[in-house]
Structures are given as C-alpha cells and as structure tokens.
C-alpha cells in the first residue's frame, strides 16, 4: 500500500514547494524584519531642511507614525513621492522621513522640486540610524504604534492601494487598542 502512497506524497510535497518557491509574486529580496513587535530604535538626528532643529523619536512617543527611508540616489523613491504626497494630504498620521547616505543640498532640492510629504525629515548621512532600523535599501516604510513599537514594515515603493490595504487597518487597530 505505502509503495503507491509514497510517490504521491512526494509529488504533493514538490507541488507545495514549487507553489511557494516559484511564486512570481513573491519578492525574494524582501526580507522579514526581526524588529517587528520590538521597540523602534532610538534616533536623534538633525532636520534635513534645518540643521539647527532635531528630529527624534522621543518627541513622537504616544502617537502612531510612519517612518519612511529614502535618498535622492534612490530611483524608486522618486516613483513613490506622488503616493506619499497624497497620503500626507489625508492627514492620518505624521510621516517622518529618514534621508540616509545623502547630501543635504541634494535632499533640499529634491523636496523643493517634488514636494514635501513629511512632517519632518531626519538626516542620516552616515547611515547609522538606517543600520539600527535594519534598512538595506530604499524606499522602506515602517509603521510605529503609540507605544513606540514597530508594527509593520513595507519594502518597495508605497502605493495608495498598499496604504489602504496594509497601513490604514493597522493604524486603526493600533489606535483602537490604545497603542
């Protein structure tokens, strides 16, 4: 009996493996972040537009916010900018930017030309805060809850569809649970 079942079981095993392994919709470069559910790494950087002002996450304590990593060297970020501007207009949560590995002048020009969706942009030329957040590319977008924990991470350019499907329900849930 098991001589017949064994090849069938092996075949089904392969089918499952291929469905998951060869799925063209799966982004194999998108890695799960070990920081989900953990406190957001502390940072204290200068504002990209005004070096005398500081941007840090202690000031954001108690509110849900979006943390979006970008740079003027990042082509996909240019693509994302339009969606970010529309999201900012909805005024649901503050959007904090992290401009890393970048040049301050270039970043200022970028924000002037393409528009500024950010509540504030932290300037991280040495990529130290980016490393603390486990960022390995751009754009990457995090969602932080009121208790200062990272609850979601999205790798690739944000779209309104992703915003509605992945971000808004989580923001609401976080607010409802008082976090």
């Amino acid at each position: 009996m098991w001589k017949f079942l064994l090849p069938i079981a092996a075949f089904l095993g392969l089918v499952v493996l291929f469905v998951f392994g060869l799925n063209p919709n799966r982004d194999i470069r998108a890695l799960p972040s070990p920081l989900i559910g953990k406190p957001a790494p502390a940072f204290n950087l200068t504002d990209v537009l005004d070096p005398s002002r500081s941007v840090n996450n202690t000031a954001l304590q108690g509110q849900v916010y979006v943390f979006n990593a970008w740079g003027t060297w990042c082509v996909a970020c240019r693509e994302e900018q339009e969606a970010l501007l529309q999201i900012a207009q909805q005024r649901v949560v503050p959007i904090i930017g992290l401009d890393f590995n970048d040049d301050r002048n270039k970043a200022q020009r970028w924000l002037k030309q393409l528009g500024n969706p950010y509540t504030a942009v932290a300037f991280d030329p040495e990529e130290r805060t980016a490393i603390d957040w486990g960022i390995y590319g751009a754009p990457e977008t995090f969602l932080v809850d009121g208790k200062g924990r990272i609850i979601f991470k999205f790798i690739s350019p944000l779209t309104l569809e992703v915003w509605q499907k992945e971000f808004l329900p989580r923001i609401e849930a976080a607010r409802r649970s008082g976090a």
Partner: protein
Amino acid sequence: MKYAMLILLTLLLCDGAARALDANGQLEDPALEARYEDITKQLRCLVCQNESIADSNVQLAEDLRRQVREMLLAHQSDAAIFDFMTARYGEFVRFNTPLETKTLWIWGSPFVLLLVGAVIVVRVARARSRMPIDDDSSPPSAEAPPGSASGSR
C-alpha cells in the same frame, strides 16, 4: 612646561586614535585585522545577497564594515558583533547558520538522509543476498550446443 606636556599628550592621544588604521585602511593590530576579515566574510550583504560584506562594494556593505571595525576597536566579542547584525537584519545576514534548537533540522537533515540511504542500502543488500545464486553455479558443460544459454554469461 605644563602646557607643553599637555599638548604633547594630546598629540600622542590623537595619534593613537588615528593609527588604529594603517595606510591601507587595515587595522594596525594583526589579530584584530584577522578577526575583522573573518567576520566580514561571514556576513551577508543584503543588497547583493550572494556576496559577503567583505566582497561587496555597495554603500551598505561599506558602512557595515565600518560598524564591524568600530566594534572590534571597542573590544567587543565576535558574538556581540553577530548579535548586533542579526538583531537588525535577521538570521539571513549570517552565512554560517549557528547550531540552535530552531536550526536543528538544517544541521540534522543531512544525517537523517544519510540514515535513510543506509537503511535502503542494507535492505536491498539483504534482499539480494537471499536470492538463489543460480547463474554461474553450473559450469559450462562440454556437451552444450554452441550459442545456448549456459555460455552466454
């Protein structure tokens, strides 16, 4: 005189800090440099995922190498450096999978497969040894006509 000493001391201290790296950008201490090379070869560059941060030229790899160098100069252990990286980038950042309870199946599966193979080999060998040895037991006889079965083996 007091000031001169102070200036001299400051210069010496500055020199010490600057000389942690030599002209080639390597760590002055050969033991630290050896550890640096060993560690950076074991960390995956997440931008070009089949390269180590020792091999990769991208900015992230460069910044992670700087991180490793700084941690070595701050007398941190290899384990602390690997922990720093996995806490931020996940287990995937390590090329060498550590032996832990959750990685047991990765380390154990070759031995399980080896065992399965051994069981199959033993069973096949036993089955064969039980077969009657009939082929070459009877020596070809002189009376056999040419081309008959007995001489074909």
